[in-house]
């Protein structure tokens, strides 16, 4: 960890790779940034913190030339710059890794790795723009991917794609690396590999800007931290360790939040049960899972282990072998409609492509699985709908609390709250199956979502949470199921050591 206590302003300017001050940006009536400052030093990893919607991604887009600021200055290597395009910024050595993957599912991994070269500039032929296969393989190796360059990107899992995006950044001559929530989809092992890559780049004199909602990651990687609140910089380049987690949280939110400990309920009768299920397309059938009333079961697994597939199967969202039941009623894997009718809520991992109705209002996103009781003779009762959904939105602290606003206009964390609200609104809710319920969500929203999940459990709902976030797993679940290579590798009780979990996940002999 950095030992420097100097205020950044006291440093020689040559030490700074990139300084942005007074940055402001307004979208329509939304003020994304009011007056943001961030100063990156060579050789250092700089963390950017802020709650959902604080303007982090907007600041990143401005730094990399994808969005033009309304006001403010950017100095790069001591000279003022105004990048007119991503290409210019990249040419100068500012390399972005975005929050939402900027990859091309229909193209090959090779083409994706060459995307910057393919996208920019004149010229006729692709030939020389496609990076040399040997080098491309080198980058993939560096992030720990062993895949054929000709593989279509679309056939990779989300985590694998994220790593491809990181590998792509390595292709560029990088002086400032900008990472906007890069590890939301990575597991601990892969996050480590990414960290190593970042550290190596910084050791070579590059600067890194790193956005994350997880304190663990920030403490593990960053040297300094800047906190953004409501479009303004409220903590400017403080060394890591100067502020406690509580202080940082307070700076981000203006108020502290504390995660309430999960209240363990007595084991009650089984609610959601699956027999003979398979985890993932390559997994062998034969997995049995039971979730009891009031119980929160955590399902963990590395990327590609089949954990998410197993969870999706339990939610009725994915077809496969085996049979499922909730209470006395049974349904088949893939029978999502029947599962919903039986009171099983399902929150998919990929909120954009599988969860959100971007064109519809927040309230309508919440009520979609509850239209039955809200309709009388095919007529939707608007007031009943508002009465059913709006309290949920309020409870989840939706911001802004405008149930009529289109879902697409909310920030990521708030969109996730809509999906949770949808789940809670399922009529006759008996079980909830949640995949990565707080991926890319800030601490405050995460707290709210966790609280809502706990409350549901306390009310007798059986909850299954599949997550790659060990902290989440440990703080939330009553017991942990670990999936490895398509099999149920271990079952651990709450309070099991982190090391034991990690060992079970990776199958190492450590345990």
């Amino acid at each position, binding site marked *: 960890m950095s030992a420097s206590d100097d205020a950044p302003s006291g440093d020689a300017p040559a030490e700074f790779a990139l300084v942005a001050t007074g940055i402001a940006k307004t979208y329509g009536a939304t003020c994304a940034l009011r007056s943001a400052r961030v100063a990156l030093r060579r050789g250092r990893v700089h963390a950017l913190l802020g709650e959902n919607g604080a303007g982090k991604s907007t600041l990143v887009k401005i730094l990399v030339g994808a969005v033009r600021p309304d006001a403010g200055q950017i100095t790069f290597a001591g000279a003022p710059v105004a990048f007119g395009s991503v290409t210019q910024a990249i040419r100068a050595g500012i390399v972005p890794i975005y929050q939402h993957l900027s990859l091309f599912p229909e193209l090959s991994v090779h083409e994706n790795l060459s995307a910057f070269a393919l996208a920019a500039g004149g010229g006729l032929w692709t030939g020389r723009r496609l990076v040399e296969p040997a080098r491309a393989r080198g980058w993939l190796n560096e992030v720990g991917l062993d895949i054929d360059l000709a593989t279509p990107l679309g056939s990779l899992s989300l985590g694998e794609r994220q790593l491809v995006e990181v590998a792509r950044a390595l292709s560029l001559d990088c002086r400032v690396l900008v990472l906007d929530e890069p590890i939301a989809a990575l597991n601990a092992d892969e996050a480590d590999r990414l960290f190593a890559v970042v550290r190596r780049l910084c050791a070579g004199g590059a600067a890194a800007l790193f956005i994350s909602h997880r304190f663990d990651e920030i403490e593990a990687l960053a040297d300094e931290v800047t906190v953004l609140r409501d479009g303004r910089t409220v903590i400017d380049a403080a060394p890591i360790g100067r502020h406690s987690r509580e202080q940082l949280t307070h700076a981000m939110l203006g108020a502290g939040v504390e995660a309430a400990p999960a209240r363990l309920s007595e084991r009650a009768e089984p609610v959601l049960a699956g027999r003979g299920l398979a985890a993932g397309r390559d997994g062998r059938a034969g997995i049995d899972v039971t979730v009891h009333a009031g119980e929160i079961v955590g399902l963990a697994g590395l990327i590609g282990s089949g954990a998410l597939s197993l969870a999706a199967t339990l939610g009725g969202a994915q077809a496969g072998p085996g049979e499922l039941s909730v209470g006395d009623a049974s349904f088949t894997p893939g029978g999502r409609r029947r599962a*919903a009718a039986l009171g099983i809520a399902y929150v998919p991992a990929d909120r954009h492509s599988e969860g959100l109705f971007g064109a519809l209002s927040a309230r309508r996103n919440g009520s979609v699985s509850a*239209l039955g009781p809200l309709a009388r003779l095919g*007529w939707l009762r608007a007031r009943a709908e508002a009465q059913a959904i709006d309290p949920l939105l309020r409870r989840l602290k939706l911001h802004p609390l405008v149930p009529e*606003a*289109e879902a697409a*206009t909310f920030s990521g964390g708030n969109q996730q709250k809509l999906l949770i609200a949808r789940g809670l609104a*399922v009529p006759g809710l008996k079980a909830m199956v949640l995949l990565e319920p707080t991926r890319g969500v800030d601490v405050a929203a995460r707290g709210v979502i966790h609280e809502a999940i706990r409350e549901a459990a306390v009310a007798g709902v059986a909850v299954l949470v599949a997550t790659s976030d060990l902290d989440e797993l440990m703080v939330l679940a009553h017991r942990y199921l670990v999936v490895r290579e398509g099999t149920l590798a271990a079952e651990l009780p709450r309070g099991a050591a982190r090391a034991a979990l990690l060992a079970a996940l990776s199958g190492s002999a450590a345990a």
Partner: protein
Amino acid sequence: MRTKRLPDTPGLPGRRGLPRLARPPAVALVCLGLFLLCCAFVPRFASFGNIENVLRVASILCVVACGQAVVILLGGIEFSFGASAALASVVTVTALPALGPVGGLAAGGASVIAIGAVNGFLVGRLALPPVIVTLGTLMMASGAAAWLVGGLPIDAPPSAAFSWPARGRVLGVPVPILAALLACAALHLMLAHGRIGRLWYHVGANPVAARLAGLDVTRITTLGYAVAGAFCAVGAIILTSRVASGQPALAPNLPFETIAACAIGGLPLSGGRGRVSQVVFGVLTVAMLNNAVVLINLPVAWQLVLLGLAVLAAVGLQKDWAALARLARRRGR
């Protein structure tokens, strides 16, 4: 305390407390502007008779466009409307001797609904691209229509009941206009208050999410295309009654005109968004344009050029107006 600034998007409720319904879509301005322009410059445009003409033609288009709107809302597109209307006219007239005017028209209408349901099933259940499906049924319906009558238009014996849908009046209002009003009202109720309309929005906005939320995407889609077929059937009945005959080539441009009307009205063809008022103003714009170029009485070549430019201008202006309106609202705050 920070003040809450709401994002300024069309998805938000009216700022001054106006309910959604009362806020006119941007195309309304274009439509109004075009109307004034026509009144000022197009000879005899503003006569009572001509306005009624425009409205009568617009009505047929409007009823069918309501169907097209449902399909577009679902993220699809319907090319088979023209052909199935033709088939309806032919079926009607062929069935006339056996079923009488009412039964005949009903049989014709039913055939359109059936084609819609088939389209919807193929799209919803088997995930075939709507372009391919409706293009296929377009060919089949039009082949079937021609085959039924051997390619020849056949006349319906004159009858009051038969000509009522096109020529009748209720309390002085021409039946087609009444039908359009009813169709719009029905569609509005479905979309704004009905459960089925809501489900269409969901499926159109994100079919995967809809399935995972527990909706029966196949049924919703099939029903949507069938309801669209029902709107088209009403239009087909009016058209059949209007030409008093079975016509294997009744209205080949119907799909294009209704798609254009919806698009001009501002419905994105990606689905999930749209209101009835947009369809209405889109239809009125198309009908006025068509009427104006005939009244201006230019050679056909210029009519086409003018019509093409007008379609582009109508949409282009709408974009600028929307931008201007946003700007004005921001200044005014």
